[in-house]
């Protein structure tokens, strides 16, 4: 009797549910092969610790908008304000509630609550602060996830496995930056043009910025960085010669809610 790998995986999955022993069995038969393998392909961009610097001096409204659009287009993020079919139009209140966003602009006092002051910050109040997942070194979302569906990679990127996520939304409660979105409804009727090289999502799972792991894997910079005309700097924090380190060395930077101890890895030059 022959058994295909696919069939074996199916059986292993079933036996896991029944006896919770499938994983152990698999580990014995194919040690180390159960978890996804993270071997960088040739030409991939790799780092010990990815980080981003947002230079607000170079970021104007139009550029920021381009960054958001580039990200959302590539990652099939729905725009609930623009249904493909006019019949699917949502009332404004639902557009806010169901919104899915990976990167967006916000006011200074929203991005950095508690750091606003009455005088001397007039310039900041009008800037479009780009906010996204901070890929924290000590991420609360990873700490609370009951299935490891969100996890921290060795290169510091906080990733989502949308096929493992049970949709409990504990990570959304855990994230102090509001960086996570849940698929409250089927997003597909609200994606203008589906990028076939990136998956669309189903209802019931959480998603967020991934620092474009799929682009890094083929040697490309994150989509927002590429669209930012130099306002976003991305690189290896552990490399003293990297561009992010150069920025951190020469400029004063701030981070969102650093006092919470999550150690965010998106730095802002204001």
């Amino acid at each position, binding site marked *: 009797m022959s058994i295909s790998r696919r069939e074996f995986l199916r059986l292993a999955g079933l036996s*896991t*549910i029944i006896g*919770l022993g499938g*994983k152990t069995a698999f580990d014995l038969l194919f040690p180390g092969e159960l978890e996804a393998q993270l071997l960088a392909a040739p030409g991939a961009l790799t780092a010990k610790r990815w980080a981003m610097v947002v230079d607000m001096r170079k970021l104007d409204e139009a550029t920021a908008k381009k960054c958001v659009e580039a990200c959302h287009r590539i990652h099939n993020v729905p725009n609930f304000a623009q249904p493909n079919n006019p019949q699917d139009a949502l009332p404004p209140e*639902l557009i*806010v*509630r*169901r*919104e*899915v966003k990976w990167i967006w602009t*916000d006011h200074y*006092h*929203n*991005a950095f*609550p*508690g750091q606003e002051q009455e005088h001397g910050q007039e310039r900041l109040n009008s800037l479009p602060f780009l*906010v996204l997942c901070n890929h924290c070194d000590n991420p*609360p979302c990873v*700490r*609370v*996830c*009951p*299935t*490891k*569906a969100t996890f921290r990679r060795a290169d510091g990127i906080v990733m989502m496995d949308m096929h*493992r*996520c*049970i*949709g*409990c*939304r*504990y990570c*959304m*409660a*855990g*994230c*102090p*930056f*509001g960086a*996570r*979105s*849940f*698929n*409250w*409804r*089927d997003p597909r009727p609200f994606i203008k043009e589906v990028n076939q090289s990136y998956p669309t999502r189903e*209802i*019931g*799972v*959480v998603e967020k910025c991934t620092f474009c792991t799929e682009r890094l894997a083929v040697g490309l910079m994150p989509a927002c960085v590429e669209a930012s005309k130099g306002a976003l700097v991305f690189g290896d924090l552990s490399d003293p010669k990297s561009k992010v380190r150069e920025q951190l060395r020469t400029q004063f930077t701030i981070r969102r*809610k650093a006092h*919470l*101890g*999550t150690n965010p890895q998106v730095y802002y030059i204001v």
Partner: protein
Amino acid sequence: MLEKALIGSKRYYGLLGILALIFGVGFLFYLQQLKTGLGITGLGRDVSWGFYIAQFTYLVGVAASAVMVVLPYYLHNYKAFGRIAILGEFLAVAAVTMCVLFVTVDMGRPDRILNVFKYATPNSVMFWDIIVLNGYLLLNIFIGWNVLEAERHDVPPPKWLKPFIYLSIPWAVSIHTVTAFLYAGLPGRGYWLTAIMAPRFLSSAFAAGPALLTLLCLIVRNYTKFDPGKEQIQSLAKIVTYATIINVFFFFCEVFTVFYSQIPDHMLHFKYLFQGIEGHGRLVPFMWFSIVVMTATAILLVSPKLRRNETTLAALCGLVIITTWIDKGLGLMTGGFVPNPLEKVTEYWPTAPETMITLGVWAMGFLILTILYKVAVSVKEEIKA
């Protein structure tokens, strides 16, 4: 013993029928939710947990409160509670079942719920909550059933049951502590980030649970031949009194820390709940009603005269249940999420389908409770307790 659940009066079947019907309607709405997603609820990216998780939290408390009957009986040999211990345990079974159902209906992908065991993650409080809740459910079914079986045959419960009973006491405390830890350990949620969360959960649980049990005892006495007993009800009333007072005290401890320190992250949530922010204040009347009436009830419960009169006692117990439910079932969840981490205000209110699903789960819980109480009461009637 289960056969006792099958033979009953018309009224018994009628009650089961109504509860099953409500459950059925809720289930239809749940099928709709499965198909179109949690978007049919009032939840959103800012308030991402709502009615379901709030009911879950409240009912964990009701479940935990069984310990208020079990502990005096088994640890202090307070014999009077032997009569009603089974009612407390079976209430816990029904409450925990509702908890499990509420967590399930809140899942975006319930089909993957076993991932929690497949990829067991001990650093997640949710993992522990699932362990302690299911453990508590099993413990109470197991203990309750065996004790009742022994009572029916007029023999003492088997000796090997004792360790399980003793285990169930700290276990009850653990379920509500771990549930509080779900919220109290999140860095960005000022309303929940307080060490008094678990104690507050326990105090409101030990107020609401025994209050509900008091009402159930009165109902059982009115509609069956089994009288849970005057002394038993009075002892429960004292527990409700102390727990309600402690609960109010804990609330004001929290209020002091938040408002004397004046730290905005913590204060804003209270402001939203009790004053409203930027014109948003949907919960304001509820929260004021909750804390004012809860405080008044606590004071009234101190009066032995009002407590001894079973009519006023029943009314006060009803108020304890309602006010703690508003505090935990409405305020706790929304208050934690509003304003959001970017200090923006998006309000939450459950939608009609969400309310129907919630009612469906409650109906299922009360269906289980009715059946279990029917069994317990029939046994008690049979042995003429």
